[in-house]
């Protein structure tokens, strides 16, 4: 396993992107990053710019308006990078199935941009912070 992927697994810096969420998943992500769950043990750090990030935490069903912006943010994240879809909405549009504003589940939007995107799914509405941590750890172990 080459050293780039190994160091990515040991020190994933995350950037949070909201593409049309109701904010429940955003609150759970912010809960996850508080000292109570201490994700700094895994080297996870919240960064303020997608250019510093290794993992994108995407919440929200992909709306038409936000799909353009999401593709731009994905382009600005230096590769290799991982995308985590947090919640039922980005995994498969959740309760907004066939809504008029929905561009598609987020993996469809990202695969148009980059067919080889590494995507991990953390379902739940919203997923508990324990579930988010477990999903991230399992995804990193499978890399």
């Amino acid at each position, binding site marked *: 396993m080459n*050293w*780039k992927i190994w*160091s*990515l697994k*040991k*020190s994933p810096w995350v950037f949070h992107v909201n593409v049309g969420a109701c904010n429940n998943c955003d609150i759970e992500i912010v809960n996850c990053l508080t*000292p*109570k769950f*201490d994700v*700094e*043990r895994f*080297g996870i750090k*919240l*960064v*303020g*710019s997608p*250019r*510093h990030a*290794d993992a994108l935490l995407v919440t929200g069903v992909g709306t038409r308006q936000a799909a353009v912006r999401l593709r731009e943010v994905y382009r*600005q994240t*230096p*590769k*290799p990078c991982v995308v985590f879809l947090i919640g039922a909405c980005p995994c498969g549009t959740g309760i907004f199935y066939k809504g008029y504003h929905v561009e598609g589940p987020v993996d469809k939007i990202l695969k148009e941009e980059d067919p080889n995107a590494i995507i991990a799914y953390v379902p739940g509405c919203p997923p508990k912070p324990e579930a988010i941590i477990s999903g991230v750890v399992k995804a990193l172990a499978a890399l």
Partner: protein
Amino acid sequence: MGAVFERKRKGKKMSEPLQSLFWILVFPGFLFTVFVGLVASWIVRKVSALVQWRVGPPFAQPFVDVVKLVGKEILVPKDAQQTVFLMAPIIAMATVMLLSTMLWRITIDPAKVFVGDIIVAIYLMVLPSLALILGASASASPHAAIGTSREMKLVMAYELPLVLAFIVVIIKTGGQLSLAAIAQHTPVLSISGALAFLVSLLAVQAKLGFVPFDIAEAETELGGGVLMEYSGALLAIWKIAQAMMLVALPLFLVMVFLGGFGTAGGALWAGIGKYVLVLVLVILIKNTNPRVRIDQAMKFFWVHCSLALAAAVILAIVGNSYGLSWL
């Protein structure tokens, strides 16, 4: 480097420029300072975690961070001023490397000094902040522009009290301008010296970019601030430069205020203890304070700190002329 080691094995004396290269690049220059700096940044993160009742990152975390950043691609914004954008982190790293090498050489070999090296040290300390300002200005991003203007104001704010604090020390040690001579005294054991130490500790906190003065890189407000557009290996160079500053600046404080860093036996352990003391003070201030606004920071440095230092200068002059060393 192979040629250097070969010559050592053959028993010949190394030529002067190669020896200087070794000092600058390996010990006690670049590699040594980077290693100690990353260990120091781990200490900062671990102690902050323990203060917050949590387990912190494992020991190798800062090293893995740097390795990971080197492995990512570098994205340069289309509108950025490319030359300055790429040179700024290298300038920062080079000046901190020079500063650190100079300080360690003075510690290890006090005979090889030149008079006035404290002025060179103060000059070299400003350059990383200037490089940060240059690099952020070249980024062509509105967030970086706000970060740059705040960093400029912050540098203007803390440079004056920092230089005044060193003038207090120079007065107290009887007008010495060479760091090796200053390192023989402990000015912190007097009132004016303690005031100067406190002010320069806060100025160093601002220079290192720690709370309460991390206005330029305020993540929650500016989304990354000054370093927003940097990625990959360039960001790794910035992180290395920040880690090296974490070694050079507290070491400078130790040499100027706390009586130097010994090189043998008990003095060495005392030196390490003093360095760790300064580091722990920085960490504790970092963890117990909120971030201040830029106008509050400027008022703090220009009004409160300068007044305190003016009092300290007067006390130092009075103490010197009457021979009272505790003033």
